[in-house]
């Protein structure tokens, strides 16, 4: 038997015009946890799609357990014992754990009758063996995200996978669940499984991985023993230059309350109460972060502030004026800025050019009227050119570039430029750095801190706890639609926030 469970050598995959993988090597030893590190767009997903048979490589070879093999489709990968735990779970919400696990290869008895009893037993067996505590008979939508992930892992084990790929597995977990997952990964390794961990979180790699392969812009940078390198080394390999992790945030005194939510209730589109009796103030010159696991009412709360979703009870005040029932445009005119989580859906009109997007919120105002009282496209254009310059937006055709053809980071810069250029009193920011590369992340964070310096009140929602911990002056932890506690930045630990995110109310001082 070969030393390597997986050997992908000289893998090249070009999509017309772009080289997603350029002679990439990946050698994963038997029974190790091998991290695959790289920024967004570095080619991690493409490489894994090739391993999984979703794409075929232009050149290069793949060997599994020392045998060279052509993986033409995902079924072959499954037969070879390769399993994948996707970042977004592929589970049927109203099926039980067992039903989900056997889906696609249901055991039958007496020629066609579903035999869930036997299946359930086997699921219980596997989950005991690997310490994956989950009740086989519970319904998916009633168990936690951490447990759902375990179901995904069980699915691969049920299919006898001995090589398991984890795609950004910690993105949706609380810090405690992350710890538990790390334990599970170690146990899987002890039981003889080979694991590939796709991630961009250096801490996790240091924590659990044996070796690490780094990709950058489709190129193979190298493979290192994790024990022999520092996080800083890994970061430099990933980005290609030295990286400053420290966020430089000057101390400053918060001013008056600008945004105030008082006993707010919000229902989602299917009538579920997602925000319950939530009260929170944001002052001028301060960043308040909302920490919490995805789906605990953050989205609904922000939508209610912006006006996309009605507030069913309670009131929202902006600078002392009630805005609870105002139209979205009225709120914008009173100084409410919004950097949405889903920039394609809510932030930009893809087919519009940059200048049209920059004017999206104030095109109707007098500043964009020419002497014939028509839209002054020339002014929109020149204003946008200024923003492109100021915010370092990289666009091939300048202000005329369609927004859809920009990279994610530049799209986000267009939105940030627009919102900041409107000089809002309150800036509501959701997941501002999601999916961006390190350079853009640094830039966007710097801009947010600058806005704080100008005395804006900033409300930040992020699922990256690091971002919240570093950026915010006060941190409000949300769980099941209510604020559990509000703490000053340095008066709370990541661990305590994790506990509160999971819903346990401790005796934290409410500031």
């Amino acid at each position, binding site marked *: 038997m070969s030393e390597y469970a997986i050997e992908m050598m000289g893998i090249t995959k070009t*999509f017309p015009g772009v080289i997603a993988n350029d002679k990439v090597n990946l050698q994963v030893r038997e029974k190790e946890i091998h991290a695959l590190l790289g920024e967004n767009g570095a080619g991690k997903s493409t490489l894994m799609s090739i391993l999984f048979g979703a794409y075929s490589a232009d050149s290069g070879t793949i060997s599994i357990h020392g045998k060279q093999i052509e993986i033409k489709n995902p079924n072959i990968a499954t037969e070879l014992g390769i399993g994948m735990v996707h970042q977004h779970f592929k589970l049927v919400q109203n099926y039980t754990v067992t039903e989900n696990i056997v889906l696609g290869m249901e055991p039958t008895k007496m020629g066609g009758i579903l035999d869930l009893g036997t299946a359930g037993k086997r699921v219980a067996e596997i989950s005991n063996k690997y310490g994956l505590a989950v009740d086989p008979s519970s319904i998916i939508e009633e168990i936690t995200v951490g447990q759902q992930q375990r179901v995904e892992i069980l699915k691969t084990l049920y299919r006898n996978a001995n090589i398991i790929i984890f795609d950004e597995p910690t993105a949706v977990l609380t810090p405690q669940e992350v710890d538990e997952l790390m334990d599970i990964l170690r146990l899987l390794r002890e039981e003889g499984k080979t694991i590939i961990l796709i991630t961009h979180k250096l801490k996790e790699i240091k924590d659990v991985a044996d070796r690490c392969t780094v990709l950058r812009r489709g190129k193979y940078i190298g493979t290192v023993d994790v024990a022999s390198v520092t996080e800083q080394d890994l970061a430099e390999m990933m980005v290609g230059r030295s990286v400053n992790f420290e966020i430089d945030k000057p101390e400053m005194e918060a001013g008056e309350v600008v945004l105030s939510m008082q006993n707010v209730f919000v229902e989602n589109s299917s009538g579920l109460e997602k925000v319950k009796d939530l009260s929170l103030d944001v002052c001028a010159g301060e960043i308040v972060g909302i920490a919490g696991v995805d789906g605990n009412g953050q989205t609904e709360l922000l939508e209610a502030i912006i006006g996309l979703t009605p507030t069913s009870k309670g009131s929202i005040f902006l600078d002392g004026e009630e805005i609870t029932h105002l139209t979205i445009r009225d709120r914008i005119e009173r100084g409410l800025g919004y950097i*949405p989580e889903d920039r394609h859906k809510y932030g930009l009109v893809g087919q519009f050019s940059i200048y*049209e997007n920059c004017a999206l919120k104030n095109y109707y105002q007098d500043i964009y009227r020419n002497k014939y009282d*028509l*839209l002054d496209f020339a002014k929109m254009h020149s204003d946008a050119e200024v923003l492109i310059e100021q915010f370092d937006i990289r666009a091939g055709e300048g202000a005329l570039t369609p927004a859809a053809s920009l990279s994610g980071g530049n799209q986000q810069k267009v939105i940030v430029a627009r919102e900041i250029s409107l000089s809002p009193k309150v800036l509501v920011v959701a997941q501002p750095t999601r*999916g961006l590369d390190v350079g853009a992340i640094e830039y966007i964070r710097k801009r947010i801190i600058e806005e704080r310096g100008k005395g804006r009140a900033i409300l930040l929602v992020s699922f990256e706890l690091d971002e919240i911990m570093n950026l915010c002056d006060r941190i409000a932890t949300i769980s099941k639609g209510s604020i559990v506690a509000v703490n000053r930045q340095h008066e709370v630990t990541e661990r305590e926030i994790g506990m509160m995110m999971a819903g346990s109310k401790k005796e934290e001082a409410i500031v």
Partner: protein
Amino acid sequence: MMHAKRKQRLLQSDAAVSVLVVLLGFLCGTILIALVGKNPLNMYKALLQSVSGYNVDNGKMNVRYIGETLNYSVPFILCGLSMAFANRVGLFNIGGEGQYIMGMTMAQTIALLGPAIPYFHWMLAILGAVVVGAFWGGIVGILKAKYEVSEVVSTIMLNYIALYLSRIICLQLPGATTYKTANFPETALIGNSFFQKITNNSMLNNGIFMMIIAVLLYWFIMEKTSLGYGMRATGFNKEAARASGIPVVKSIALSMAISGAFAGLAGGIVALGSFKYGRVLSGMDNYGFEGIAVALVGNSTALGTMLAGFLFGMLKNAQALMQSKQIPKEITFIIQGLIVIFIALRSALKLYQEYMDKRSLQKEVGVK
């Protein structure tokens, strides 16, 4: 990504694709004629004659054909604008036919019952047609904006209501029989004696001026006003438009009303320009439906829709000529149908492209 972009550019050159699609439609039509054992050349002779008035077979020139082609084009273009306007705001207005019928009915009613004052009479009738068309479209817009009723369903329903309502109303008009009313007074007609003179008594009338004004107005509203700006944003990305404070609900309701106004105008022009009496409809004229195809071929732009409307007018005028040359006139419908199918294929290609772009983007962002 680069590739996707380049490909998108090519697809975005919509005008080029439309021309290609039209040529492809004619090519298929040519092959079909050959397959049924006729001479395809005759179709092109008929088409040439309908555009230029020149009869290749006997070398005679009759400018009347030019006038008729232009006259046929007017309702196609206006109904095309109707479809296109809604389309730009992200709506699918299949109700052009109903709006057209209502406009026609209103024009006929005013023509027969209104004050027979020169100029004022036909202007009032045309205005009535526009207003009632806007009303008929506006109903759909309000239903859609306020109650999220699918505009596809409500427009189809309203088409039938319009047809039978039109019959009920027209049967009450002076001199009504089962298929026509009394003749209109002279003051209600929009004929143009100068046009008649230079086009050898074709039906070409003042409607063509109204059509040109409508095309300009369409372009002006869409491209130059903040109303159009908000509407285009709504059409491209309703959610982003809403989040940016654009009154999406208002845009939708208003766009359907404007859309209906164009179709209503078409109805008024056909009623007062191409006929001397009111018609009691027994079936639909189909201008409204064919407007959908016109807008598709014209990519919902002002100029594109106008050119596509001319094409459809030419085909319609060529039908009789083709029959006289033993070419089944149905071939023109087949060509129109093929053009629409090819255009639809392009939309499918675009959807596929968008899907692939999204996937590659998701891959880049690392989201599966």
